[in-house]
C-alpha cells in the first residue's frame, strides 16, 4: 500500500529527491522529455473500503511532461524543492506563507529567477502540494506546517506527553489547565497519551463556542470524557489528534454538529475518512471509528427542534441540496453500503429540504442551562447515533 511506502521513504526524502533530479537530468541529456508524476488527489481517484476506514488513492496520476507550457511549472517545482531540501537539512520549519516569502526573497536576490516569481500564495501553495503528492510524503514531512487551528481539548483524565525535537519530554495533565484548553499540535505523532482514570467517551463538537459552553457548565467535571471543539472543517491537527486518541486510548468517539450536507461531507466525512485532497495521508489523519451523534433527522422531530427550510430559489442554499446529491453520486464514502445510515441522512436532507443547527438543542428546555448535555448523554446511553 502506498502509505506504507511513504513511511519507509520518510527518512529518504533527500535521497528520493536526488534520484528524481538525476533521472530528469539524464532524460534531458538524451533529449528525452523528463516528466514528473504525482498521485491524482481528487474524489474521482478516491477509493473507500469500510475495513480500511478512510479514503485511499486510486491508480490515477497527474503527469507533467516537459514542454514549452510546463517548463515554468517544472522550473518552479525544482526551485521550491531545493528550498525544502535545505530546510530538511538544517532542521528549519516554515508555513506555506513563509515559504512564499522565502521564494520572493531568493528571487529578489538573483535577477535570473525573476520569471519564477509567484503572483500570489495560491501559486506557491500548489507547487508545495504537488511536491508532497509527487514524493508521496506529508507536507509536514517536508517541514512545512500549517497553523494549528481547532481541536481545543478539555479533560480531567487525560495526560499528554510530548517528545520535543531535542529529546526532552513535556508532560501536560489536562486537569491542571483550569479553563485553558489543550491545543493539539500539527504533528500529533510526537505525542503519547495516558488516561489517569478510565475515559468513557470522546465528544467532538463542530462549534468551538458550543464546546466551550459545555465545558463552562461543567461537562468534563461530571463526565469521564474528552471534550473537543473542531472549529468547522477539521484541520490536519484535529484529524491527526483524533486518530491518536483512537489509536492510543480506545475510547468511543462521537461527533456532534449541524444537520446539513456541508457538515456531513466536509466536516464529518473528513474527520472519519479523510479528504480527497489529502489522499496520501488519510491513514494518519482520520478517525474511522467516530460516530455521528447528531443532530440526527430523528432528533428534529423528537425534540421539536427549530429548523430552516432550504430555499431552492437562493443559489447559496440550493448548493446545499446539490452538494448532498453530488455526495450520494460521487463520494465513495457515502456510496459504500457500510455507510448506508449516513447516506440515508443525505437522502433525508434532499427529500425534506431542511437544515437544523447543533445549537437548536438549547431550545428544548431554555431554562435548563445543561439540557444540551443531558440530551447528549441520553443519546450516547441509548445508542442513538449513526
Amino acid at each position: 500500500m502506498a502509505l506504507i511506502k511513504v513511511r519507509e521513504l520518510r527518512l529518504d526524502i533527500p535521497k528520493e529527491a536526488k534520484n528524481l533530479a538525476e533521472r530528469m537530468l539524464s532524460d534531458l541529456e538524451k533529449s528525452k522529455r523528463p516528466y514528473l508524476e504525482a498521485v491524482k488527489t481528487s474524489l474521482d481517484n478516491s477509493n473507500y473500503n469500510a475495513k480500511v476506514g478512510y479514503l485511499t488513492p486510486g491508480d490515477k496520476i497527474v503527469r507533467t511532461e516537459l514542454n514549452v507550457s510546463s517548463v515554468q511549472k517544472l522550473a518552479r517545482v525544482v526551485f521550491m524543492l531545493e528550498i525544502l531540501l535545505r530546510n530538511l537539512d538544517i532542521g528549519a520549519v516554515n508555513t506555506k506563507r513563509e515559504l512564499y516569502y522565502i521564494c520572493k526573497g531568493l528571487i529578489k536576490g538573483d535577477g535570473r529567477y525573476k520569471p519564477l516569481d509567484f503572483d500570489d500564495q495560491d501559486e506557491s501553495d500548489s507547487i508545495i502540494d504537488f511536491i508532497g503528492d509527487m514524493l508521496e510524503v506529508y507536507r509536514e514531512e517536508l517541514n512545512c506546517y500549517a497553523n494549528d487551528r481547532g481541536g481545543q481539548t478539555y479533560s480531567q483524565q487525560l495526560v499528554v506527553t510530548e517528545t520535543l525535537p531535542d529529546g526532552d519530554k513535556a508532560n501536560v495533565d489536562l486537569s491542571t489547565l483550569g479553563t485553558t484548553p489543550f491545543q493539539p499540535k500539527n504533528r500529533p505523532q510526537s505525542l503519547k497519551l495516558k488516561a489517569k482514570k478510565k475515559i468513557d467517551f470522546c465528544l467532538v463538537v463542530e462549534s468551538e463556542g458550543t464546546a466551550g459552553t459545555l465545558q463552562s457548565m461543567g461537562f468534563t467535571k461530571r463526565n469521564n470524557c474528552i471534550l473537543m471543539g473542531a472549529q468547522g472543517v477539521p484541520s490536519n491537527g484535529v484529524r491527526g489528534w483524533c486518530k491518536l486518541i483512537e489509536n492510543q486510548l480506545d475510547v468511543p468517539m462521537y461527533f456532534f454538529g449541524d444537520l446539513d450536507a456541508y457538515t456531513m461531507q466536509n466536516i464529518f466525512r473528513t474527520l472519519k475518512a479523510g479528504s480527497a485532497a489529502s489522499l496520501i495521508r488519510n491513514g494518519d489523519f482520520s478517525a474511522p471509528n467516530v460516530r455521528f451523534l447528531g443532530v440526527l433527522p430523528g432528533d428534529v422531530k423528537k425534540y421539536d427542534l427549530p429548523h430552516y427550510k432550504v430555499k431552492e430559489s437562493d443559489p447559496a442554499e440550493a448548493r446545499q441540496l446539490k452538494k448532498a446529491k453530488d455526495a450520494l453520486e460521487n463520494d465513495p464514502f457515502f456510496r459504500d453500503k457500510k455507510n448506508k445510515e449516513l447516506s440515508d441522512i443525505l437522502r433525508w436532507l434532499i427529500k425534506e429540504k431542511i437544515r437544523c443547527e447543533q445549537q437548536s438543542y438549547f431550545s428544548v428546555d431554555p431554562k435548563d442551562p445543561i439540557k444540551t448535555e443531558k440530551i447528549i448523554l441520553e443519546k450516547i446511553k441509548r445508542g442513538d447515533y449513526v
Partner: protein
Amino acid sequence: MSKITKSSTAEYFAKNLQQVGFSSPLKAVLTTLKEAVDNSLDACEGAEILPELEIEVKKVGVGSTKNTDLIRIVVEDNGPGIDGDDLAKVFGEYLASSKFGRGQCSRGQQGIGISAATTWAQMTNAKGVQVISKTKNMRKAISAQVDVDIKTNTGILRNKETLEWKKNNGTRVEFLMDGRIQMNGDGGLLTYIEGTVLVNPHLTVTYKLGDTDKGKIERVSNETPDIPEATLPHPHTFKLGEFITHSHLYGKISLSKFLKTGFSRISDQSIKDFVKHGMPKGLVDKNLGSMSEEDFKKAFQAVQATELMAPSTKSVLTVGEDALAKSIERLGQVDFLSVVTRKPTICDFKPVVVEVALARFIDRGSEGEPVQLLRFANRVPLQFDKSGCAITWAIESVNWKSYGLGQPKESLPQGPYVFAVSIVSPFIKFKNASKETIDASDELVEEIRRALMQAGQKLSRHIKHEMKEADLERKLAHIEQFGPILVEKLVTISGANASRKKKAEEGLRKILGRDSDEAVNQLEEAQTKLAAQKQKEAKKMGSAADEAGKGS
C-alpha cells in the same frame, strides 16, 4: 360618492408623461429627438426617399422648472412633407397614427410619441411645436405652431402662414422645452445618433449637439429599405381582452368572417377545427354585435386550443450583413468585426429577425471596461433600463470566454468592442409604453443568443489568431527564461558536473525547439483561417459596394 369624470386621452398622457419617456429632463430631450427622427425616417421610407436629416440640440437659456435648461431641438428632413390639413393631427393629437396596430415594422407604432413631445414643450415652455412643412404639390411651405388641446385631445394650429422655403419637400420641427443635455453614455445624445446611424446605412445626417462642433455622417448605402407588406396578427398572440377589443374594429360582421379577416393563418378549415375544439356551432355565423362576453370567451378558448400554422415571416425586414458591416465603420476605426443576420423566425407566434454586429475598435473603449452595448428595436435605439432587456439577458447568458473575451460572472463581456443587437418584428413586446426595453420571453432570448453565438464564433477567429501570436511569444520567452533555471536546479540537487550540465542544456533546447516549431505552425494555421474569413468578408463588402454603386 365622489363624482366620476371621464378624461380625454390627451389628459391621461399629459398627466403620465413619465410613462412615455418624459420621466426626467435628460430623457425628455432624448425622447423628443428620438420621436422626431423616427417620424422623419418612417416618412422618408414610406415615400422611398433617401433620408437626409439635420439635427440641432442646443441649450438656449434657463428652464422654467428647477434644475433644468431651456433646450432647443430641431430636426429637419427631406421627407415627403405633411399636408396642412394633417399638421394638427400629427403633432397635436394622441393615438392619431397611420401605423397603429397594422403589423408593419415601422419605427413608430401608436402615435403617442411626437404628441407627447408637443405636450412636454407646451407644459414647460407654454408653446407647442413650431413646424415648417412642404409637400411637392404645395407651392409654398406652411409654417405654424401646433399645440395640444388637452381637454379634447385635438391639435390646434396657431400663427399659420405660408412662406418660401429652400426645400422642395420636407419637414422641419422645432421644440423649445425644459430639459438637460447629456452627450455620452447609455442615455446620451451622441450614443443615440451613433445607434441610429448604425442601423440606417442609407441615412445621411448633419448634427450639432450642445457646444460641440457640427458633425456629418454620410450614407453608405443608396437603397431605401423595402418595408414589407403589413401582416395580420396571429390569433395565438392575443389575450381575451385584446381579442374582444380587436373585434370592435370590424363592426357588424359574423364571427367567422372576423376571424378570417382580422387574423393571419385562419382558413375555412381552421373554423371547422375550432368547432371540433369546443366552439359552439351556433357562434360561427353569429354577428359580432350580438355576441356576449361568454360567447367571445368560448370562441377564444377554442381558437387557443387549436393548432394553427405559424405566422409568416415575410413581414420582417433586415438591415443586412453587408450594410451593417459598412455602417459600423462609420462609428470609428474598426479593428475587426463580425456581423450576423439570422433568418426570420417565429418567437412567441410573432415573426422576428435578429441581427448582430460585433466590432472591435481601435479608437474607442478599453480592455477593462464592459463592451458598449447598442440595442435596437425596429431600428430604434433603446437607451434605458438595460438590465431588464431581453437583449442584455441573451448577451449575459453567452459564455464569451470561449470566444476569447473577458467576462465577469453573469455580466457583459469586456473590451474595446461595440455589440449592436437589432430586433425587428411587426409586433415587438415592450415592457413599457416608452419603448425602452424588450420583454424577455424564453424563445426570444434563445433566438438572440443563437445570433450572438454565431457572431461570437466569427469574432473568435480574429481573437484566436491574436492569442496564438501572443502564445508563441510567451512560449519562446518561456524557453529562454525557465529552461536554464530548470537545468541549474536539477544539477544542484543531483550534484552533477559541468559537462553534464552543458549536455542537458543542449537536450533541453532541442526538445523546446520542437515545441516552438509547433507553435509557429499553429500560428500559421490560425493566420490562414483568418485570411480565408477576411476574404469572404471582403467579397461580401465588395458585392455590397457594387450594389450601392448601381443604385447611385
